[in-house]
């Protein structure tokens, strides 16, 4: 089959499809409802209070009631005990103890040479004999 024959067959098939669709269109055109413009208000979006809007409205009212109840029952500030407030100088952070790490006292002092706290010498080190130089005659 040549390319021309293939094209012809394709055209024929497409014409056949078009003819089928045209027949379908003719049949469906007989059952088209009457044109109405302006359209009646009953169409989905035109309804003033559709189901969706009703649900959205109910949700808004429920949210407002919940917000009002929350504002009514939840105190906005912690209750005051009547005790005087400590001054800033006396105030201590509740997490201050976390700064007290093990061995922190060592960092607070300057180490001294010769004094080693907690160290005891086992034996005295031998004293070195002074070297005397012999002068040859």
């Amino acid at each position, binding site marked *: 089959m040549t390319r021309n024959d293939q094209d012809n067959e394709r055209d024929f098939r*497409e014409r056949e*499809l078009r003819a089928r669709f045209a027949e*379908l269109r003719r*049949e469906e055109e007989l*059952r088209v409802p009457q*044109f109405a*413009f302006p*359209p009646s208000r009953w169409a*989905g979006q035109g309804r003033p209070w559709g189901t969706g809007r009703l649900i959205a409205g109910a949700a808004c009212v429920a949210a407002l009631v919940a917000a009002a109840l929350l504002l009514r029952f939840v105190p906005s500030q912690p209750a005051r005990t009547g005790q005087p407030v400590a001054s800033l100088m006396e105030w201590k952070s509740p997490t201050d103890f976390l700064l007290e790490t093990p061995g922190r006292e060592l960092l607070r002092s300057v180490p001294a040479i010769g004094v080693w706290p907690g160290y005891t010498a086992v034996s005295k080190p031998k004293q070195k004999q002074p070297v005397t130089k012999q002068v040859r005659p």
Partner: protein
Amino acid sequence: MRQTDFQGELEGLHAASFGWALWCCEQRREEAEEVLQTAYLKVMEGAARFDGRSSLRTWFFGVIRRTAGERRRRRWVRDQLLVRWFTREPASVPVPDPEAQASGSQSSRELRKALAALPARQQQVLHLVFYQDLTVEEASRVLNVSLGTARTHFARGKAQLRNLLARHHEEIA
């Protein structure tokens, strides 16, 4: 365009618009009527404005497609979230109008049946090109897809539709 001219143009398009609405609503006649009414309402209230960038037919078919999509989504939300939660029953799946399905010639019934077996996008492109006599480019504008995508859907849909019709003929023979 004056309001009366516009109205006249829409009236001229009415049969074609209903055919397209029917296709967007999977052949459910009642739903297609409501979709078309809502599309007219959108035009009348100014929610959809024709800016003249495409033909009136292409633009209005786009409005119908979007309206049908919105309606489908609303129905889905209603069915899935409300009906299923409150009644614990499976959501009702709307079926095509049986009267419309049974009506018409043998050839039309075959065509409807074969088209129903295709993916929705292929059905829509074939409908716009063969039924509405639009070009593939115009169909791509109605469906809001690229021209390449529309061409692919058209070629695949056409090939598949031919196969389905041929198979149906073989079964009869």
